[in-house]
């Protein structure tokens, strides 16, 4: 048992934090959010330069061959800085799918470019009434002329608009909610028949609804095996969820630091409001939530790399339950303790509130994971 961080891990996290402190103020971030694309190519190039985009990928593609714990440190820093660039979607989700399921040719085509910041991915999976059921895929993929034809609708595709390639889930067989029969397809965002409607999310990211109307892709667009994508999707979702927990930990840390600072500086009745016991105890409970959430994020990140699927699922769901609860607890308390100022667009705390609120239910809220935890318990995990 040890919680040691290697020198490389510490250096990477420190250099990212330094960069964000210098270049990613809340004002700079606001300009990025309001820009036409909603993300910054300059920041993205800097991430590529620092090597962040290659942390978990194999060295042969230009990556570092790092663990989820390595990425965890990056995600914590990004959470603290409230970064809107599509790191999580590319490295945690799209990149994970390619690295796990891609053929040699697919990996060679995509991963080096992704790591260099020249190619971006998005995962077009969620559908209108699927909620958190990963097997719910109504989009159809029919074999046609040596390739596939895709038809369907995808919702809330995070960073779909900035992606060069969409990883689309489509069903080649079975009913909408069958576990078997799902495939993954690499689709150019600009391909004929692909329509995107982009929008801003409440937490100031970009997402898109995607329509696929008779979109034809070649046979080599198939990622992994036909009809057997669900375990891959589950793996990537667990991996990404573990990283999301780490992002939440970073954002919670920021919320706590800002709130503590506010308690010490805001004066009412002639004294700092932090001298009031009613507020002190609430602040302490926020700190306890943070420590407990951090412990679970560590557990999830360690398990997504090393554990068999049942154990992985068990740990990730446990982590998401705790983290989702902590997201709600800390974000709500942080706004309350900031008083009216916590409500304003001006303070980073309100932006952090929105991000934590959405993280709490991305890839499943606490209730969803309570259900999944119990199911994995019965499975003898």
């Amino acid at each position, binding site marked *: 048992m040890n*919680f040691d961080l290697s020198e490389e891990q510490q250096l990477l996290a420190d250099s990212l934090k330094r960069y964000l402190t210098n270049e990613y103020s809340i004002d700079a971030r606001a300009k990025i959010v309001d820009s036409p694309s909603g993300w910054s190519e300059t920041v993205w190039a800097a991430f590529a330069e620092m090597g962040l985009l290659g942390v978990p990928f194999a060295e042969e593609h230009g990556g570092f061959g790092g663990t989820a714990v390595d990425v965890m440190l990056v995600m914590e820093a990004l959470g603290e800085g409230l970064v809107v660039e599509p790191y999580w979607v590319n490295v945690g989700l799209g990149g994970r799918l390619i690295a796990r399921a891609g053929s040699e040719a697919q990996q060679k085509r995509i991963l080096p470019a992704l790591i260099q910041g020249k190619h971006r991915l998005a995962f077009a999976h969620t559908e209108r009434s699927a909620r958190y059921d990963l097997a719910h895929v109504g989009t159809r993929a029919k074999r046609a002329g040596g390739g596939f034809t895709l038809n369907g609708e995808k919702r809330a595709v995070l960073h779909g608009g900035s992606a060069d390639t969409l990883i689309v889930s489509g069903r080649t067989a079975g009913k909408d909610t069958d576990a078997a029969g799902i495939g993954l397809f690499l689709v150019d965002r600009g391909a004929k028949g692909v329509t995107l409607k982009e929008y801003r999310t409440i937490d100031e990211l970009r997402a898109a609804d995607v329509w696929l109307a008779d979109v034809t892709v070649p046979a080599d667009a198939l990622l992994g095996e036909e009809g057997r994508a669900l375990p891959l999707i589950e793996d990537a979702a667990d991996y990404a969820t573990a990283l999301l927990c780490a992002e939440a930990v970073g954002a919670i840390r920021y919320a706590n630091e800002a709130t503590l600072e506010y308690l010490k500086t805001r004066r009412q009745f002639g004294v700092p409001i932090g001298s009031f016991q009613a507020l002190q105890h609430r602040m302490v*409970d926020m700190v306890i939530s943070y*420590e*407990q959430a951090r412990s*679970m994020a560590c*557990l999830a990140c*360690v398990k997504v790399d090393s554990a068999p699927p049942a154990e992985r699922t068990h740990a990730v769901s446990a982590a998401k339950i*705790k983290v989702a609860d902590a997201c709600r607890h800390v974000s709500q308390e942080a706004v309350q303790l900031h008083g009216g100022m916590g409500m304003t667009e001006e303070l980073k705390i309100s932006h952090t509130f929105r991000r934590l609120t959405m993280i709490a239910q991305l890839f499943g809220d606490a209730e969803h994971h*309570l259900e999944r935890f*119990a199911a994995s318990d019965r499975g003898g995990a």
Partner: protein
Amino acid sequence: MDLNYSPDELTFRDEVRGWLKSNLPADLRAKMEGYQELSKDDLLRWHRTLAKKGWVAPDWPKEWGGTDWNLVQRYIWEEECGFAATPPLIPFGLRMCAPVLLQFGTDAQKKKYLPRIFQGEDFWCQGYSEPGSGSDLASLKTRAVRQDDHYVVTGQKIWTTMAQHADWIFCLVRTDGTGKRQDGISFLLIDMKSPGISVRPIVLMDGSKEVNEVFFDEVKVPAENLVHEEGKGWTVAKYLLGYERMGTGRIGASKRELAKLKELAGEQLKDGRPLMEDARFRDRLTRVEVELMALEITNLRFLDQMRRSGRPPGADVSMLKIKGTEIQQAITELMMQAAGPLAQAFRPVDAMDFDHFTARLAPRYCNLRKATIYAGSNEIQRNIIAKATLGL
């Protein structure tokens, strides 16, 4: 980062687990698992078994009988004991009086008391709280007046756990009523057989008799029983606080009880299905389980920080006390609820057939309300964190 135990740590765990398995008497284990009251004899029997093995005081210096285990090994030991359902080691001698003597005692005091604490020859209790001094301990009023070579102690202590069994009591007493009130407190060791001491049990709502009032009526205490200097008792008390909060996480025991709870909820039916499959009940149970998983890792992370910094436990330990006791209480509540109407039973009137296990669940729930009150109430723990960690 590696959350798994190292091969060495696993070997150690297996060793202590194996030893506990073959050396924990079955009757004691059954009493612990069934939440039955333990007698003084039960407690001493286990104490002496560990003393013989040399494992009764792992955190003491080796020269006094400590094991030289590192922090992780001590943690593993604690948790394995909890998981195996060993009787508790009463902390007042081993983990409270002894660390104080080791830090502040004279050589003569160490030689006189430590070996007897180790062997379980003296049973200790703690004289801190008074009727008017609970969380505000520094307001205590029990007076000790110096007369020649002894002190004369008059006053009252309350909530004194196990005083009915005790041979000795360590007390905070007031030796000076002027000046800053913390500066007038001293730390005295008092023989419970001294003339003028009387003990009255306080019956708790579960019927248990574990706490007492202790009255001191002009009790003569030899001056050599003063620990540290006169007026320095508050320093001693603060030193002890960290120790008292250590080991309040009780993670191993909570794990065992959670497993028992699942078993119970698997037997009880709701609408013909096991209660465990009822989403509302199960979700509450799962949230407790997740908090416990998190607490285990948080505990290990704090140990890791201590190992790195080489510093004794700080305010962080308060967090473990808060979470650990909240979890313990939540488990007792779910246990009682799982038993449903059976939880009403308390004690048999005559020698009838009686389900002793379910009848212990409501008393246990009642009794464990103490956990968030004792050893510095959880509100006091929050004050400590606010002040020491957060600088509020």
